[in-house]
């Protein structure tokens, strides 16, 4: 029982970081209806930004943390400019967007390998590794930080989307881009904001992830799992992405705790196929209609 609770806590903490990544996929999907596979590259860059801000420029953690978020946001907006805007202007089918995204992600991953190198980098120790004892349970300080920071960011994001004017404009654009453009919403601006927001959270997630584990160019393979979480919760739904991520995090830690850590990734992909067969719109996604 105690072991189970321990796994649950670990799952919550890893799931909350997945959520920070997954909302980026969902935000873009809600507006542009395609899976932005370049998001993984942005997360990876976020992790590297944080690493260099802290080791090379000796920024204090909080400054480095925010700065990497901003840098990743700029990167995400740049990606949109270069790789998606020409396609959008031409009204290309969504599959072209996916290919373009794949190209960007190959580029981002390999430019890091070519310039920085494929080696693993370890973050300097920010929080002590000494866990907090709660009775006989141990909670890692980093895990706790990951959970708290993610929860705050996600709460802010949901507030932004649901209660502010910009959020309403994002919702309207997601509902119908052309109609909202006719209503005077600058949809190009909205798309920039969405990419910026997604990128900012991706940067933060990258730093948290790098702190907990290490930084390396193939970190994108892990971000693929946050994409699974987004599909699981329902692509295009922010709340869905959060719930899907938390559930996936818990499922993963319980699998590795009770079955074998070798099957952790397999379970994630099996879950992806299962959810697509049983309920393709995910737990909370919109019912996709036939657009003919």
């Amino acid at each position: 029982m105690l072991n189970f609770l321990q796994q649950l806590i670990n799952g919550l903490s890893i799931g909350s970081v997945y959520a920070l990544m997954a909302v980026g996929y969902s935000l873009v999907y809600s507006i542009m209806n395609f899976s932005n596979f370049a998001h993984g590259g942005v997360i990876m860059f976020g992790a590297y930004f944080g690493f260099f801000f802290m080791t090379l420029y000796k920024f204090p953690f909080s400054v480095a943390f925010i700065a990497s978020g901003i840098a990743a946001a700029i990167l995400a907006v740049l990606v949109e400019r270069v790789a998606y805007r020409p396609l959008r202007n031409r009204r290309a089918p969504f599959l072209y967007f996916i290919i373009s995204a794949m190209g960007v992600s190959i580029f981002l991953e390999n430019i890091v390998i070519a310039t920085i190198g494929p080696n693993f980098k370890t973050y300097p120790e920010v929080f002590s590794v000494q866990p907090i004892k709660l009775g006989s349970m141990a909670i890692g300080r980093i895990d706790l930080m990951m959970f708290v920071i993610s929860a705050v960011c996600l709460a802010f994001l949901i507030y932004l989307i649901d209660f502010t004017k910009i959020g309403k404009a994002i919702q309207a654009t997601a509902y119908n881009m052309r109609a909202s453009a006719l209503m005077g919403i600058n949809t190009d601006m909205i798309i920039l904001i969405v990419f910026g927001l997604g990128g900012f959270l991706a940067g933060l997630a990258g730093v948290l992830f790098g702190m907990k584990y290490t930084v390396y160019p193939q970190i994108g393979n892990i971000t693929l799992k946050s994409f699974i979480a987004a599909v699981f919760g329902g692509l295009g739904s922010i709340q869905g992405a959060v719930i899907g991520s938390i559930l996936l995090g818990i499922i993963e830690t319980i699998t590795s705790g009770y079955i074998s850590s070798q099957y952790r990734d397999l379970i994630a992909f099996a879950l992806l196929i299962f959810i697509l067969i049983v309920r393709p719109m995910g737990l909370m996604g919109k019912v996709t209609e036939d657009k003919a």
Partner: protein
Amino acid sequence: MLSWYYIKGILTLAGIYLLPVLGLSLLTGFTGLFSFGHAGFMAIGGYTTAFMMVKLNLPLIPSLIIGGLFAALASFIIGKLTLNLKGDYFCIATLGFGEAIRLILDNVQYFGGARGWPGLPLKTTLTTVVIIDIIAVILLRNIVNSRHGRNMIAVREEELASSVIGINVFKHKMMSLIISAFYAGLGGGLLATYLGFLQPKMFSLVRSTELTIIVIFGGLGSITGSVVGTLILIALPEILRSFANWRLVVYGIIVVFIITARPEGLFGGKELSFNFLKGLFKRSVSKARGEN
């Protein structure tokens, strides 16, 4: 550097990859379905072929065909479950399938697990590959020009309209998927008996993406494009090998550039046939006359 031995190696490799590319060309170029899981079909074909040859001592050609059939069977099952999905959900499902196959193979110790399976018989030569390629191209051309092929193109152009005029959309998507998986399985089998080594890592998501990229680079809806695209994109990384780390960076840039600047690829919808050459010749002659 340019010894015949070296060129032969590149040509054989290109010839082997041509098979999955041709299959994917039918699925993507002619039927309008995208797949990010064809490396999974290659893996099934490769491991089945290797199993037939090593454990059951069958000769090359029957083993290859059985490998292809197993890949086709897998595609039938996955297609039955997911071909009804709308939008990019089918493509996400194939992504999940491909990765799941890789992760399963990672854990099957009978086939060597993640460490790989060395010591397979080296039976594939350039001649075998070229003969199989020629048969595959002719067969594919006939399929595309048949009634079924035309129905597939109709499905690509407008799904709803083609179902209204009595085309069984699901059946034609399924046929296309099965044939393309069979081709991919053959390619996997040839790869196994050419390299003499199999490893699940060879069939990752990146490989699937690469195949799709080649099809798009060559041009959707063109068999010629797929052949030329394979020759260029398989040879290109080899030529760029001296740049080692930078070649995939260049590769990523090329992909984004092609997709944003020339989405129809090299030969979008066009075929290099005798008639086409004749037409080209006539046009250039009349142009030359007009200028005089």
